Each structure stands twice: as C-alpha cells, then as structure tokens.
C-alpha cells in the first residue's frame, strides 16, 4: 500500500504585497487612476451636453484645490502605470525578428516609453500654443 500523503500548503492571500510582485501590483492598482481620470473627462462631456451651467460647474470643480490634488494623484498613478505597462509590453507580442536576430525586449520597452514621452510633449506644446 502506498504511504503517500501529499501535503498542499495553504495559499498565501497576500502574495501581491511581496517584493517580486510589487511592480505587477502597482501596474494593476494604478489602472484605477487611469479609469478615475476617464470618469473626470466623462463628467465634463456630460456637463457639456446638459447645458452651460452644468459645464461651468464642472470647470469650477476643476479649479478647486481638491481637484488639483486629485489630478496630481492621477498623474502620479498614470506615470507609474505607463512605466510598468511598457515593461511588460514586449511579453504581449510575437517576437520581432530583424534579419536573423530577435529584437531585444528592452528596445521595445524603450520605444514605447519614447512614444509616450513624445505624445506628452506634443500635448503640452499644443496646450501652451492654444492658450487664450
């Protein structure tokens, strides 16, 4: 008769809080900042559709110190999200083979971050340029 009695260790519920998983946890958690900012923009769009006073109220909210703090939080979250997301991006796509060599994954990450940076600069330039 077999004396085997395999022991299954209990699952660690806080695995996401341990060092090897922190970048992952940060990436997933800061997705909420991205969603939060989308909600703010959506509120503006609804305000715009429902009349001048509603839109003015939304603009007023944007000027409040609470809103500035919230946007600072969103921005920090967004930067962390972009950074961690482009780290994992090369894993989500088929290998790019140039000539006979596989393109190193850190180049794909660098290209993604460069595009994110460039788009940020373009948005800032347009914002400054079109300032009333």
């Amino acid at each position: 008769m077999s004396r085997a009695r395999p022991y299954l260790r209990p699952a660690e519920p806080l695995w996401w809080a341990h060092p090897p998983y922190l970048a992952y946890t940060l990436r997933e958690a800061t997705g909420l900042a991205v969603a939060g900012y989308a909600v703010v923009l959506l509120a503006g769009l609804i305000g715009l559709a429902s009349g001048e006073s509603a839109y003015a109220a939304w603009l007023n909210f944007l000027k409040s110190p609470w809103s500035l703090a919230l946007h600072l939080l969103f921005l920090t979250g967004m930067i962390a999200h972009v950074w961690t997301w482009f780290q994992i991006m090369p894993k989500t796509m088929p290998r790019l083979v140039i000539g006979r060599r596989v393109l190193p994954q850190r180049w794909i990450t660098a290209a993604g971050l460069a595009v994110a940076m460039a788009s940020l600069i373009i948005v800032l330039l347009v914002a400054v340029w079109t300032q009333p």
Partner: protein
Amino acid sequence: MPPDAATAIAAREIVIEVLRYRPETNREPVRQAYRVPFTDDMSVLQGLQYIKDHLDGTLSFRWSCRMAICGSCGMMIGGAPRLACMTVVREYYPGPFTVEPLAHFPIERDLVVTVGGFVKKIESIYPYLIPKTQRRLDEGEYLQTPLQLARYETFSDCINCMLCYAACPQFGENPDFIGPGAMALLQRYNGDSRDGAQTKRMELVHTDNGAWSCTAVGYCSEVCPKQVDPANAVNQNKTRSALDYFLRFLGRPAGSGSAASGEVEP
C-alpha cells in the same frame, strides 16, 4: 567537488533551514535547521548533499545533473524559486537561509513535490510536430529558414524544472491553469513554420484554464533559468486567442489567426 573535499578546506559555516515533511510522522511540514560548512564555489545542492551525507540521511530531495540541464532540483531558496545546483551558498552568507519545496505544488516528502499534474499538462498540448502536409521519404526533409527558427527557438529550451509554476500566483490560485511551462512548449510547436496543428492546440489556449488564466505578472520569465520567456508565450497567445474569437464572425475557421505569425511556405 565532493562534499568531503569541501569540508577539508571549508572556512565558513552557514545555517540552512529546510522545510521537512515526512508523511508517516509529520501531520504538516516543519522547519529543521542544519549548520553546514561551505566554500565559495559550493552550490545549495552541494549543501543539501552535505546534510544528507554527514548530518541527516533521512533528508529527501531530487537532483541529477548538477549543471542546470535536467531540471530536477528546483526549490524555493531564500523564498524564491531557483535551481539548487545553479545557486551558490555564499550568496546567503551570513545567513541563515531557507530551503523549501517548490511553491504551489503538493509536497510528497521533504523537498520532493508532486509533478503528475504538470506531466499531464505537457501531454495535453500535443508536444510533437504535426506536419502541415506529410512528406514522403524521397521528398526530403522539412526545411526551415533561420528567421523561422528564431520565432520559436527559445521556447524549445525549456527543461521542465517548474520554477515558473512556483513563481505564478495564478497557478497558485487555480492548479488547473495550464501554466507558463506547458504554454511555452505549446508555443514552441504552434510557432514552428513546419507545424500544422495550431487549430488543435488553440482549443486549449481559448479555455479559462488556457491563456486567459494569466494576468501578465511576468515573474515566471524572471525566474526561468534558461531564458525561455514563458510569459511571452502565454501573452502572445492571448492576442491570437482574441483574434481567433473575432475572425469567427468573419467565417474564418478558428486557428487561422494563429497561423498568421508563421511564415508562408514557399
């Protein structure tokens, strides 16, 4: 270096805390500490062999090649999944450090875990080439360009050590998840330009226990001792699976999306 020679010139000692489990005496695993002399070039596997030869002959662990090719000695060392033969003791000086069986797997005895589930998964993915069109012997071999080889080559380097499974929290939550290792092997065949069984294997990828159990943690690729990059294998299959799903509505057969990455035969 045999453990006896190691003892002769050993200058330092370190405490290794091993998680022990003997099903006939222990109800659950217990820690046991051993004081082990070590040299600078000594691996954790040699440390365990020292324990077995000199301190406690009842300690059980798997090993074979001592050079990171057989994939037998995967265990949690200092809390991380590593090959015992590929990890040096001096890294953990002054210690103590822990050695435990691979996480997420049932323990059979001491550092030996159950591998049956993993072997079943490997078997389930059709782990062999199924040619697009069978060639007769006089038609010669199935040719492949270096570029076609580069698309899947590292996925064929897997040594089945299961470190990636111990690194994967989703496998910890769902033991039926096909997992990084088996998915890397699946991609080794699905990404091969000579293979024609993508549709068959994609059926496994599409399920809840296939690619969609993965949340792109990425730690599996970090711990891989052979740079197989299983996270890449799993996650590029999510794209393929999604593509197959939408191509269905266009009346294309499932699996045609997965063939898109393969080179067209000349």
